[in-house]
């Protein structure tokens, strides 16, 4: 029982550290300071105000998260 518990704590802490320190795959097309390339957005979810491209969000801070469902 004790061993299991310890295992649980260990894996939890690995997860917690992992979350903070796994670097994101670095994009190779852009560098800090350059203009963020614009792209068209065809549809939104969770964003009723909408925007047809990234440039429409100028004036706000935008955190782009390139992701896939898999």
């Amino acid at each position, binding site marked *: 029982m004790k061993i299991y518990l310890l295992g649980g704590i260990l894996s939890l802490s690995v997860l917690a550290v992992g979350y903070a320190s796994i670097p994101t795959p670095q994009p190779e097309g852009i560098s800090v300071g350059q203009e*963020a*390339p614009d792209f068209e957005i065809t549809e939104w979810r969770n*964003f009723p105000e909408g925007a047809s491209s990234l440039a429409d969000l100028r004036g706000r801070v*935008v955190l782009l998260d390139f992701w896939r469902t898999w």
Partner: protein
Amino acid sequence: MVPGLNELQEKYGEQGLVVVGVTNESAGLVETSIENQSQTYPIALVRGGSADSAYGVKGFPTVVLVGPDGTVLTNKDRHPESAIVEALNSVVLTPLLEGQKYSSINKAIKKKDLGKAWKAASAMLAKSPEDAQLSGLLESLENSFESGFNSAVAKTEKGAFGDAVESMEKLADRYKGYTRAKEALQKVKAIKKNPDASDDLKAHAMLNKAKAEFKKGKKANRKKGKAICAKILKSYPDTPTAKKARAMQG
């Protein structure tokens, strides 16, 4: 990842952060994912691989933070909260006023015609000096001008004259009609007269041409853009603009 992004959007959305999940997958897949993973932050559907390739995405998730002026702030950090907080300092959110009588002011704000909004609000406030919505708006407009002006002055001090002129001109345009808008134009004049500024201004004008080429997006245009960047690096290597040209060359 999802809880972290939901949390960031919830925490900083009102201050001007938009978390945008970018995917080229089908709406059906995305909706299933939203159901299963409870994403509450905005998801943008894009077509094909052009967004991924424009950013050189090599794996998922890739996180890029973009500032209010449209420049890339970080591209290495998966959870760049401190950079977000810092960037939010320069966001100016002008809240719309509540009430039919403010419709023309709201219209000006929506069009980012902030000088017009300022003028209309001051005229209205003169008639009803107790109106807290109006005085609040004027204060936020004046503060936002001030912070934009100061950040442009800081650029001048760093020698980034081209950037400074561009910011000052934008500011003067947005705040046309506001009493201090002229100060921005005076700064522009002074910078243009300053002999130390001339290299960076020339380099900056070239960089704008390069940007226009990059924007067209075709291979031949990108080549042209890169050639302009190379010229900037050769002719004006010590200017702050040269750094940007180097970054754009990729």
